């Protein structure tokens, strides 16, 4: 098939798949964004809750340690040893041994010279304190100073789950600094082993107290640059933010103040991990969309196949039509517009086929009519002749291929017979009657009868042929070469006009219609008897024979020539009694000028005879 560009089927397929694909993609992007925002909000909410809960738990635990330590504080502050210095009493030592949360408690005092002096110490195991401090002994003074400044400090001892709480009690000369080593085993384990999120317990400088096991930094500030670590003056109780860590990983971080010293619980979740559900949803959605698109493609292929198959059938059919084969039928079952189109195409093809047959039939008929016209032309005599003392000149033009007018002349002895007739209507039926008239005349003219008898015989012939359905008006005249008498008989035909030079200049009133006798039309009554009339022709006399089609001639504007113009043209054509040939030429010229090639309404036939005696006499 000679197609151009992409097939209609693929265009439909593309449309049917592209539209849902684009819509689904847009929906997916939008839904993912909404889901992602919602998920992040959820993660922030969950981690904030987690950090808040953990902060409360740590605060409770540390407060519990301090509550347990307070009797020891009081014991130390109220008891004096033998040297008059403050010390733990036996009761205090007993209380210490009973307290399961405190591993060691050491009392420091800042002397007047600013030096920090150890005043008392209680240890569950001797040497435990120093062993626990380990490398932290170097920074112990900072812790004590921090406790003196802010009242309390806490830090990890680094090795295990023990922490050092430094608490200031009293002020000025009575001020004592208690350093307590306690274990936060469960809490520390929670920070180290958290799975879904990373938990950090830090102070406000970022110093790590507890952190996930894999985290080795001492300070969180570099690894997780939270805003409050960058700006220590920032006041907050709880917060959340999205940050990028030192490895470039985006983290969702939330934090809560513990409310014990400057401790802060930080919770971080890798954004990618937090949004892993979004990825899963995206993958599942894509799988669903692919399945959906495949379904759409399959359905589209089936649907477009039905549509394009019907159109392809139409295409093939139209191609056959373009090649001239109109005997095609498109079989489309669908009830939609394509079905209607196919039905209309079938109707159109059938109609075109019928019209082609009709055209062929018309062409055949026109050919036959052309043949009939050729045959009919043989029925007419030479348009110009000299016969029996008469000059005869005529004109004939049918309104269609064949005409119903007929004229004729012949000589029988001394008689020159002049025939003119007009069948009912015009065209082929009328032409057939004229043919019958011609055939009859060929016989009649050898019977040596006068015009009236000739009309009667012709009437019988026409009656036999037409059986009353077609008729003819007819006028027959015979001119006697010796006597110059014109004898005529008329069967309801237009009366010819006799024009006599002897009557002076030709005028309307000098036109003499040959209407002395008349009878019914040929074919009307088989037994009709016609009468004859005679008129003596003088030298130069002219007679104008015609049919009624002449006044009916129309101009291009459909204006009728009419009897007045006809008579006027006839007078002008014969004004100087020229030759019959000249008068015919003049008359034809006049009406053709009026007509300007317009279609004739009726056949136009006329002929002029002139008595040539004048020329002969001269």
């Amino acid at each position, binding site marked *: 098939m000679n197609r151009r560009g992409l097939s209609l089927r693929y265009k439909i397929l593309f449309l049917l798949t592209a539209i849902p694909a684009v819509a689904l993609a847009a929906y997916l992007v939008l839904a993912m964004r909404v889901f992602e925002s919602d998920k992040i909000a959820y993660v922030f909410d969950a981690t904030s809750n987690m950090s808040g809960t953990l902060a409360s738990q740590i605060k409770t635990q540390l407060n519990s340690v301090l509550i347990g330590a307070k009797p020891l504080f009081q014991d130390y502050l109220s008891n004096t040893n033998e040297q008059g210095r403050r010390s733990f009493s036996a009761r205090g030592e007993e209380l210490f041994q009973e307290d399961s949360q405190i591993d060691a408690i050491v009392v420091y005092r800042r002397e007047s010279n600013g030096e920090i002096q150890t005043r008392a110490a209680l240890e569950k195991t001797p040497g435990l304190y120093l062993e626990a401090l380990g490398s932290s002994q170097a920074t112990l003074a900072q812790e004590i100073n921090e406790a003196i400044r802010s009242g309390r400090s806490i830090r990890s001892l680094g090795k295990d789950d023990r922490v050092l709480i430094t608490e200031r009690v009293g002020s000025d000369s009575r001020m004592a600094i208690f350093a307590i080593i306690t274990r936060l085993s469960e809490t520390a384990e929670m920070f180290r082993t958290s799975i879904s999120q990373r938990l950090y317990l830090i102070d406000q400088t970022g110093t790590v107290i507890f952190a996930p096991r894999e985290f080795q930094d001492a300070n969180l500030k570099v690894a997780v640059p939270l805003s409050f670590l960058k700006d220590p003056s920032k006041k907050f109780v709880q917060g959340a933010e999205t940050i990028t860590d030192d490895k470039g990983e985006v983290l969702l971080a939330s934090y809560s103040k513990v409310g014990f010293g400057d401790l802060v619980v930080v919770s971080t979740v890798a954004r990618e991990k937090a949004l892993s559900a979004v990825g899963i949803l995206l993958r599942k959605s894509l799988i669903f969309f692919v399945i959906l698109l495949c379904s759409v493609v399959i359905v589209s292929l089936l649907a477009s196949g039905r549509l394009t198959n019907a159109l392809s059938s139409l295409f093939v059919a139209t191609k056959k039509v373009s090649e001239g084969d109109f005997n095609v039928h498109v079989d489309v079952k669908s009830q939609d517009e394509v079905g209607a189109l196919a039905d209309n195409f079938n109707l159109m093809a059938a109609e075109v086929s019928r019209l082609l047959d009709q055209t062929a039939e018309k062409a055949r008929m026109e050919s036959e009519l052309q043949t009939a016209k050729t045959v009919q032309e043989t029925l007419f005599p030479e348009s110009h002749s000299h016969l029996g003392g008469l000059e005869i000149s005529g004109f004939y033009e049918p309104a269609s291929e064949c005409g119903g007018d007929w004229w004729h002349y012949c000589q029988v002895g001394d008689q020159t017979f002049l025939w003119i007739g007009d069948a*009912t209507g015009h065209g082929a039926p009328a032409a057939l009657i004229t043919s019958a008239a011609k055939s009859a005349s060929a016989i009649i003219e050898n019977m040596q009868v006068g015009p009236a008898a000739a009309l009667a015989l012709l009437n019988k012939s026409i009656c036999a042929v037409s059986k009353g359905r077609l008729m003819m*008006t007819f006028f027959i005249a015979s001119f006697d070469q010796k006597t110059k008498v014109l004898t005529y008989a008329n069967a309801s035909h237009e009366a010819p006009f006799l024009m006599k030079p002897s009557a002076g200049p030709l005028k309307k*009133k000098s036109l*003499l219609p040959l*209407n002395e006798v008349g009878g*019914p039309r040929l074919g*009307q009554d088989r037994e009709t008897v016609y009468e004859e009339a005679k008129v003596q022709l003088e030298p130069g006399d002219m007679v104008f024979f015609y049919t009624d089609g002449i006044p009916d001639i129309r101009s291009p504007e459909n204006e009728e020539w009419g*009897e007045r113009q006809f*008579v006027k043209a006839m007078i002008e054509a014969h004004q100087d009694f020229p030759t019959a040939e000249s008068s015919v030429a003049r008359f034809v010229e006049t009406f053709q000028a009026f007509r300007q090639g317009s279609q004739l309404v009726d056949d136009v036939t006329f002929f002029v005879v002139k008595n040539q005696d004048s020329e002969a006499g001269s």
Partner: protein
Amino acid sequence: MGKLEIKTEKNGDKLNLTLVGTIDEDIDFNQHSLSGVKEIDLHLSGVKSINSCGIREWIKWMGGSSAEVLRWHDCPKPIVDQINMVDGFLPSTGKVLSFFVPYYNDDAGSEKSVLFRYGTEFTDSEVKPPETVKDEDGNEMEMDVIESKYFKFIKK
């Protein structure tokens, strides 16, 4: 509606027919039978034209009349031409009581149809045209027919 309208008024044995339009091969006179009436008055001023097929139908229609009196009124030129030319167009019982004669003035281009009435402008043997016929502007008009042909039926 056909090309010819025929208005019929029957009053006892009298029939009044008024014809308006064109008489051609499409006419069907069978719907207007002329039998069974004694007097017929035909009013023909509305007839515009008649062709050869119409003449055939007309003669058959008129032939079916059994009327003793058949009066033709206001015959226009196409009817008068056929009366003059076609034998039998006017039945033997028919009588023309009035007919139109066309007049014209070639210089002024005016045209007019003058009604000739039996007993006034014509009798059974002669025609007495008005001495002068003038158009609306007072121009004298001449008869637009060949008298020897147009008035032929009067002397039949």
